[in-house]
């Protein structure tokens, strides 16, 4: 099981949870498991082509999965997957 850290903008879709446990052997599987449990996160994370939305960054522990193997990046037990959209705050 990996721990998925949920950014503030997505917490309404996870019932307020800032961390969700999800199983999977790759980053893609872990995120699919998350979307399975919290269906409203699916559209935010995945674009029409089953790939991650370009405006969402995902990290395995502290490394952007784009420099690893993207959604195919292997995940080990106890790893952390961080979902991070950009913030601009304002007004």
């Amino acid at each position, binding site marked *: 099981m990996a721990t998925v850290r949920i950014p503030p903008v997505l917490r309404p879709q996870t019932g307020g949870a800032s961390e969700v446990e999800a199983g999977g052997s790759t980053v893609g599987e872990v995120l699919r498991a998350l979307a399975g449990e919290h269906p409203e996160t699916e559209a935010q994370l995945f674009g029409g082509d089953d790939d991650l939305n*370009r405006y969402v*960054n995902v*990290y395995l522990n502290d490394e952007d999965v784009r420099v690893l193997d993207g959604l195919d990046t292997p995940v080990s037990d106890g790893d952390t997957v961080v979902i991070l959209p950009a913030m601009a*705050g*304002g*007004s």
Partner: protein
Amino acid sequence: MATGADTEQVKAPIEEIEPFEASEEIEGGDVVLIDTREPHEYQESHLEGGKLVPPGLLGDEIAAAAPDKSARTILYCRSGSRSTKAAEQMRTLGYEDVASVAGGILAWQEQGLPVVATEGLSPEQRDRYSRHTLLPEVGVEGQLKMLNAKVLLVGAGGLGAPTALYLAAAGIGTLGLVDDDVVDASNLQRQVIHNTERIGVPKTESARLTIEALNPDVDVVEHRTRLDASNILEILEGYDVIVDGADNFPTRYLLNDASVRLRKPVVSASILSFDGQISTFVPFEGPCYRCLYPTPPPAELAPSCSANGVLGVMAGTMGLLQANEVLKLVIGIGESLIGRLLLFEALSTRFTELKVRRDPDCPICGEDAPEIPPGEMGKFPDYELFCAG
């Protein structure tokens, strides 16, 4: 057998004059002014027109400094004792009209008379910044770098306010503020550079007033405007470091593209509800904002503080982390957040660090990235939502 002359050792005491009397005489002209201290004391500060003749070198050097033995010669030192002894020595050398400043340069300053610093910090600055100059990593040299630095803050709001405050306190010599907004009561929960009396006042003016009262060494340049492709290059050019406290994505991307083009480092942070992010972008040394966020999110994933709220202290927390980054860049010490994205969650008081890498395919700072014309900066050809502006 002792002669009468040996027993007549009672010399007339050296004439001592008060600092203000000395000042008047000096201003009247025709006075030779001698500083009888050591070089490092002289360098810290001295009287204008004072010629340095350290006590140990008096015999060798006084003739050059004071060629006319009948001229009115006034001596001073730190507190009045070395100058008295030096005056006595000069008298035995045949100088006819010597006097010593009672209480020395200390009394001179106590009486409000001006001194000159040959290099470095004035006496007031040495006092004001003493907690900085005591730090071996900073010292007078580091403080001078801060005083000579020019930092631009994009946004004088949530992030700009605390950052500007602490950079002014630190003695950053020039602070530019870009903001076209006026102070609103709802700002005061976190924008502590403003206050209740400034409601309705332009933010740059309000910030300038606070900064002037805090530190007169700081020159505030108000840019009461919004950055756009037509003005950004001109505005950024005059500054060494940029602080990104913008409240919208288009400005952040525009700022990124312009700062990479001009090779200006940007310290960038953002806050929302209980969360903050910060990183430092130094063009070509590390990633740029677009390497980190190649595409801005759609509106529903990017709420504003006015819609979702923000804990007031988040502005201070992240703003001060920004100020810390600026100071380190200016002084040239420590390790900055280049290639590191620092996340802070206030609810759990937890810091997380993520790695940020340069994207080799980045359209702005990638190896083969073409130089884009100013009109194209900050734009995304394939992103329709941007035209909302």
